[in-house]
């Protein structure tokens, strides 16, 4: 998945099972491996039978689209390729060539009934918006006791753990998951214009949000990751969108102190003693 996986609290056998789980997810969902199921599905199009794992992840992707009002969408595979992220990130280089044509999201082009998938109109899937976080949650389920699983900084825990945050500071994750989405690490240029991997589904182009990084705490890593992406894409409306759902969010913008939404502040700032 192109990221470091950290596991704490696992026995040797549990660690092996977590490793196999991540290897399997990479084999199935990689956009760059020629033999991945995702590549086969995108190349085939039309109707096909997919694996149970693929169907479950696509269901999660469609669920993410529904609960975020289409912000986190699984049909942006062509858009991210058009932006220039069409190979392993280590091989993505800035180029004087312009980005390809915009490719807005088209969730209506996807129908899934059990394991039967119908993909219409040349739409390409990219399930990486949910696959890594779901793998973290599933990895944690393989641990019998307290511990945590973290993949590239998206983590889920059973038991309390102190976590360093982007730009300094730390927080204690008591339960659930913590995920950070942002645009400062995976970015490149096309014809002098900055590109990154978080696509605005409405425009089909990299988002122009003011945020550089958004960290969210959710009941699971999947919830945290989906909410962090949605809040990032919502720009100035991100903090209140999270507050409406009771989700703590921490927003980092260039040259400014991190902005904490009300739910985050209520969780981590010392409370005034009650009047008696």
């Amino acid at each position, binding site marked *: 998945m*192109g*990221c470091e996986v*950290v596991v*704490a609290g696992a026995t040797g056998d549990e660690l092996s099972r977590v490793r196999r789980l991540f290897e399997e997810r990479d084999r199935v969902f990689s956009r760059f491996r020629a033999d991945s199921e995702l590549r086969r599905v995108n190349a085939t199009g039309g109707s096909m039978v997919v694996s149970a794992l693929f169907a479950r992840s696509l269901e999660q992707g469609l*669920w993410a689209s529904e*609960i975020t009002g289409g912000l986190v969408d699984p049909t942006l595979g062509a858009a991210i390729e058009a932006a220039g992220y069409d190979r392993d990130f280590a091989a993505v280089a800035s180029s004087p060539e312009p980005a390809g044509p915009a490719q807005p999201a088209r969730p209506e082009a996807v129908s899934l009934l059990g394991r039967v998938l119908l993909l219409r109109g040349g739409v390409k899937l990219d399930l990486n918006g949910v696959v*890594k976080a779901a793998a973290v949650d599933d990895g944690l389920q393989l641990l019998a006791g307290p511990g*945590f699983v*973290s*993949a*590239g*900084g*998206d*983590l889920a825990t059973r038991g*309390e*753990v*102190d*976590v*360093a*945050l*982007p730009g300094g*500071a*730390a*927080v*204690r*994750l*008591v*339960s*659930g*998951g*913590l*995920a*950070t*989405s*942002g*645009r*400062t*690490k*995976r970015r490149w240029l096309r014809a002098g214009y900055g590109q990154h991997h978080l696509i605005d589904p409405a425009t089909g182009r990299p988002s122009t949000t003011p945020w550089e*990084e958004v*960290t969210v*705490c*959710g*009941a*699971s890593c999947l*919830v*945290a990751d*989906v*909410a962090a992406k949605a809040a990032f894409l919502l720009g100035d409306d991100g903090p209140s969108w999270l507050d*409406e*759902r*009771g*989700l*703590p969010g921490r927003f980092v913008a260039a040259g400014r102190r991190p902005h904490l939404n009300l*739910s*985050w502040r209520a*969780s*981590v*700032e*010392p409370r005034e003693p009650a009047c008696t």
Partner: protein
Amino acid sequence: MVLAAVAALTFTASAALAKVAFPGHSKRPIRALTPPARFLETVRRDELQSGVLAPAQADPATATAQT
């Protein structure tokens, strides 16, 4: 001829009466059995449940960062 005309008239009248009077027939336009939009919105919001955060109490054991 007359008999056929009476039969056709009777059939047409009966069909029209059945459409407006038979208790099993809908007398209003059909509406899909979907829950109200506000209910759906509330359910969707509730699906995004929060975890639990607290102030840090020790050196971080791990970090969250974008990938």
